[in-house]
């Protein structure tokens, strides 16, 4: 179908940067806006993974769909680490890897426990991940989302960019209030629809406006900051010990977040690294630190610094990550409305998964809408099927499994402070050759560890960790 907004071919940003304020362009946009029909069957708010998967599935399913995005083009405001998972993406657009803009297929995942000056590492490498259907890829969202939005338009959805949804239209009946469309910040910006899918991301202003998500606290969200750093040619293969084109992820725990509840990451792209940290907002507030300072400190760590040598920073980005988990998942549906992705808190922080939950939820919401259309009923009675579908899928099952993870890590700072230090101490003792017998070393380690945190406390921590994550 058609594409409104800046223009049909997503003109490049320099151009729109230059012209966006010229009246002719604005008039042009406004004219295009006037061409947008005033009524659709479904409106999807937000063109991130959730909204794109939803709009694509709806359009393929023959639903007259409008996708509204506030950015210049889909992806222009979107940030993630960013690892995109193959399986759920393939479920929406099969064989996407043949044409999507991807950076590197990941063949090795490493976890680094950082203490001052040192690192304890574990990892898993399998070159089998370099073959179809792959496992996951590093990506840049401003490229990937834009590509997927084009596929969505090809599938028959209408896309309008540079447009912010600010409110809803309601249909008042005696017994209920049904969402019946959206209000945008354009002149005469109201558009009606049978159903609205809110895919607005973590800053869930509209979800809160509907009263579906209670006000979140700073303990429910992390802030992530990230840098894209260009490296000299061939450096990624050399420094990360992979074959040409293969990718590596490193998650960094402990000193990487200055002992705060959170995680750092380093992901390999084609010629750049994505490096960042995420920390809980409440802990950051208490620390008095700026998130960029946390990132800069991690970049200076002796285990990290050599990976960045000769690098040139290309971009700096920030975005919040919903970490409230299962308990903070809002009501996912109401009359004429469904909530998907980050707006619905669907993030598995323990495994840094978000985009896959977003895509899957968008797809399941769309399938629910397709069914509702057949029934001719968009009330919450029919739309509840979305909730049931999510409950039967890995999305809510995984969130349920880790429902206590956030509380555990919030209330036990030792996991990010003391334990990385003890791991360092133990490893250092064991690996230092100094003619002390291994048995004496073990005794020494045991003594040090139990003197820093009593044996029963450690046993309790490990038990809780196992109960929560196991």
């Amino acid at each position: 179908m058609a594409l409104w907004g800046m223009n049909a071919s997503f003109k490049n940003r320099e151009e729109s940067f230059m012209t966006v304020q010229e009246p002719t362009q604005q008039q042009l946009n406004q004219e295009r806006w006037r061409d947008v029909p005033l009524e659709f069957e479904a409106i999807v708010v937000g063109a991130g993974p959730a909204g794109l998967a939803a709009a694509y599935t709806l359009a393929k399913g023959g639903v007259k769909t409008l996708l509204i995005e506030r950015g210049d083009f889909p992806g222009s405001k979107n940030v993630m680490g960013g690892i995109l998972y193959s399986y759920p993406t393939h479920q929406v657009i099969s064989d996407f890897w043949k044409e999507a803009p991807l950076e590197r297929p990941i063949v090795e995942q490493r976890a680094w426990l950082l203490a001052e000056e040192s690192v304890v590492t574990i990892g898993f490498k399998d070159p089998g991940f370099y073959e179809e259907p792959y496992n996951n890829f590093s990506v840049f969202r401003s490229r990937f989302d834009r590509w997927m939005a084009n596929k969505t338009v090809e599938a028959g959805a209408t896309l309008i960019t540079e447009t912010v949804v600010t409110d809803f239209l309601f249909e008042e009946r005696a017994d209920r209030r049904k969402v019946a469309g959206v209000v945008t910040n354009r002149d005469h910006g109201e558009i009606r629809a049978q159903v609205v899918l809110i895919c607005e991301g973590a800053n869930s202003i509209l979800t809160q406006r509907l009263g579906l998500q209670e006000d979140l606290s700073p303990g429910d969200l992390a802030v992530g900051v990230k840098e894209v750093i260009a490296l000299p040619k061939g450096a990624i293969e050399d420094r990360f010990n992979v074959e040409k084109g293969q990718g590596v992820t490193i998650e960094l725990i402990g000193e990487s977040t200055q002992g705060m509840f959170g995680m750092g990451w380093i992901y390999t792209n084609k010629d750049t690294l994505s490096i960042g940290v995420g920390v809980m907002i409440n802990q950051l507030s208490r620390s008095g630190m700026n998130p960029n300072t946390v990132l800069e400190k991690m970049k200076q760590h002796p285990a990290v610094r050599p990976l960045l040598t000769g690098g040139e920073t290309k971009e700096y980005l920030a975005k919040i990550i919903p970490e409230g988990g299962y308990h903070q998942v809002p009501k996912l549906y109401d009359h004429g409305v469904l909530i998907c992705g980050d707006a619905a808190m669907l993030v598995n922080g323990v495994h840094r998964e978000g985009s896959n939950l977003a895509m899957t939820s968008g797809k399941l919401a769309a399938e629910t809408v397709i069914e509702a259309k057949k029934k001719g009923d968009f009330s919450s009675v029919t739309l509840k099927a979305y909730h049931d579908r999510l409950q039967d899928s890995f999305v809510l099952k995984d969130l349920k499994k880790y429902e206590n993870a956030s509380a555990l890590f919030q209330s036990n700072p030792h996991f990010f402070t003391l334990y990385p230090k003890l791991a360092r101490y133990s490893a250092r003792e064991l690996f230092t050759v100094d003619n002390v017998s291994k048995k004496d070393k073990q005794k020494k380690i045991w003594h040090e560890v139990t003197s820093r945190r009593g044996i029963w406390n450690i046993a309790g921590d490990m038990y809780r960790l196992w109960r929560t994550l196991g």
Partner: protein
Amino acid sequence: MHTLEDKLFLVRFQPDDHSHIHINNKELCQHDCPDKPCTYICPAKVYEWNEEVKAINVGYEGCLECGTCRYGCPRDNIHWVNPRGGFGVMYKFG
């Protein structure tokens, strides 16, 4: 390339001519918020305490639209809306 200012210089913005961020009540900032976390938790340092006028300065033009301040202000004193369509941050990589 290590200062925050250098990094922010790399980000492209299309600033609107009016702010999408407002402080609801500046008395609260002055009297009921000793730590003023907005001045350090914001990844772009958009908020700055101005001692002369006893109020927070909001440099909205450099906002990365991350959402941190909406949740991090302990007095719920920041009114933040999405910038108008076509304005605000424009990432190249994302």
